[in-house]
């Protein structure tokens, strides 16, 4: 048997912060590409708006704090935050939604705590929660899939809708979010939730017209694309496996328990795994090295806790998706988790 005989340090590859961030951004591309393929280019416009706002607010606040502006901007962490915000909001949300969200994320969630590496909360998710609480109407007007849209939207239409609230032909975003057969558009999670409230069972919902119109297949595909991007991150060792794997396992186990307990009232595990922000959250949001737990046991507990909260809120809570809330709640527990899961130093203590 051959033993590898390497002297410490064993980490062979060194990556700078900006290399890590750029790699994460690159791994987001498959998901973003599918999003714009299914729902129109609007999310690319949102991404560019968010990036502009992020760079501007980061530069402004760094200047105010007398920190090196260009060096810090180069680490691309603000860009990553901006992209995460832009892809979590509805594609045709008004421009100021994404701008307010990004400015809040950069200034209040990141820089106020002292910049990259100091923030307690995940900036993108804190901004998402701020937007969801402040502007519930705009944050829930999702578009139908392009093939089901009653009016085909050109790029100019989408730009116009983002900046003025109406397309070139004068259709408002509310009109656009109604699909071809007049069914009001919602995400699959939302559709399931509303139908459950109206007394339908899961099996009835999955065969209903509403659910078929809710673009669940496309959402599955997008989640699959984020999964693929995430696997590249795992393979490249940019994120440790503990958080994504235990998060997905947690979602599977907890939603299976709920499903097994009452299959008529709780969606099956596969639906939970591939809807909403599950995959995006598992690989790109929970694994944020700054706001996540740092010990191995802590990471596993952190991910399981978030998975538990996500399943609870999705099944019995007030919001259709819960990754953002769950991540913030998980972030709050991180100091405690890190404290109680400190590994023992070899030879020290009992």
């Amino acid at each position, binding site marked *: 048997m051959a033993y590898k005989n390497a002297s410490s340090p064993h980490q062979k590859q060194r990556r700078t912060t900006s290399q890590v961030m750029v790699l994460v951004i690159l791994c987001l591309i498959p998901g973003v590409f599918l999003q714009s393929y299914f729902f129109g280019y609007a999310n690319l416009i949102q991404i560019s708006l968010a990036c502009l706002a992020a760079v501007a607010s980061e530069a402004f606040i760094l200047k105010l704090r007398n920190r090196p502006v260009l060096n810090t901007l180069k680490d691309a962490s603000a860009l990553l935050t901006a992209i995460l915000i832009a892809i979590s909001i509805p594609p045709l949300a008004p421009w100021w939604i994404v701008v307010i969200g990004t400015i809040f994320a950069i200034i*209040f969630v990141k820089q*106020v705590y002292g910049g990259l590496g100091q923030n307690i909360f995940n900036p993108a998710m804190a901004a998402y929660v*701020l937007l969801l*609480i*402040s*502007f519930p*109407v*705009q944050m829930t007007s999702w578009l139908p899939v392009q093939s089901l849209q009653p009016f085909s939207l050109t790029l100019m239409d989408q730009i116009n809708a983002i900046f003025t609230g109406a397309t070139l032909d004068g259709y408002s975003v509310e009109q656009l979010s109604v699909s071809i057969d007049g069914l009001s558009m919602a995400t699959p999670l939302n559709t399931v939730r509303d139908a459950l409230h109206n007394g339908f069972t899961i099996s009835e919902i999955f065969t209903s017209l509403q659910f078929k119109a809710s673009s669940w297949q496309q959402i599955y595909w997008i989640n699959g694309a984020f999964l693929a991007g995430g696997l590249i991150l795992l393979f490249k060792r940019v994120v440790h496996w503990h958080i994504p794997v235990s998060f997905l396992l947690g979602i599977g186990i907890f939603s299976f328990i709920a499903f097994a307990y009452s299959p008529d009232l709780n969606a099956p595990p596969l639906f939970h795994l591939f809807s909403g922000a599950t995959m995006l959250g598992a690989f790109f949001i929970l694994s944020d090295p700054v706001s996540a737990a740092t010990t191995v046991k802590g990471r596993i507990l952190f991910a399981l806790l978030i998975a538990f909260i996500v399943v609870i809120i999705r099944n019995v809570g007030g919001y259709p998706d819960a990754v953002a809330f769950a991540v913030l709640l998980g972030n709050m527990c991180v100091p405690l988790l890190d404290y109680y899961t400190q590994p023992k130093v070899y030879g020290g203590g009992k």
Partner: protein
Amino acid sequence: MNEQSQETAVGTDKTDSADPVYKELMRQGLWANNPGIVQLLGLCPLLAVTNTITNALGLGLATLFVVVASNSLISLIRHLVPQAIRIPIFVMIIASLVSCIQLLMNAFTYELYLSLGIFIPLIVTNCMIIGRAEAFASKNGIKHSAFDGLMMGVGFSIVLIILGASREILAQGTLFDGIETMLGDWARVLTITLYQADTSFLLAALPPGAFIIMGLIIAIKNAIDHRIKK
């Protein structure tokens, strides 16, 4: 309560220049030791009811009245109060003053009374008032105590009003909305609509928004202090 505060203000104006103590008290209450943004006392009403200027003004004036009156009364009886049971006595005096103001508001500004709700009786538990009673009024003469109460109350009210104004602008795009509930129907003209908000920035109207704006005000105050020191 308007007249009360004005009278006190006029009464102290004359002596202000004569005695350096008053100047110091004024500096302490309004800036250096402001109960709202430096001592961080009475945060519960400060954050809970400042969603409009009207509410902020109403609560600010009520608190102002209570702190001036309680400081004066406690300063008057400070030699008669046994040291061991001074706190219960202070609280009883403050509670009776708050009951007065609550009944007055119930009688004359009923809608404001309703919109402030539980936070009027909660003035009793405002640490700023008991703090001034214990730290200042129980050791100083009536003139200084009353002036200290006035300055602390004004300092507190100013913070309330700034907070209320910024939250009202962000959430509703108006200023002095609902002022008629406090001053009577003529005051409707005071309501200013800065912009027509299609969608309100709900966070500013919610408690987290109050915390964030409060943090910003404290940060600005600290930045100004920092600059003055330089």
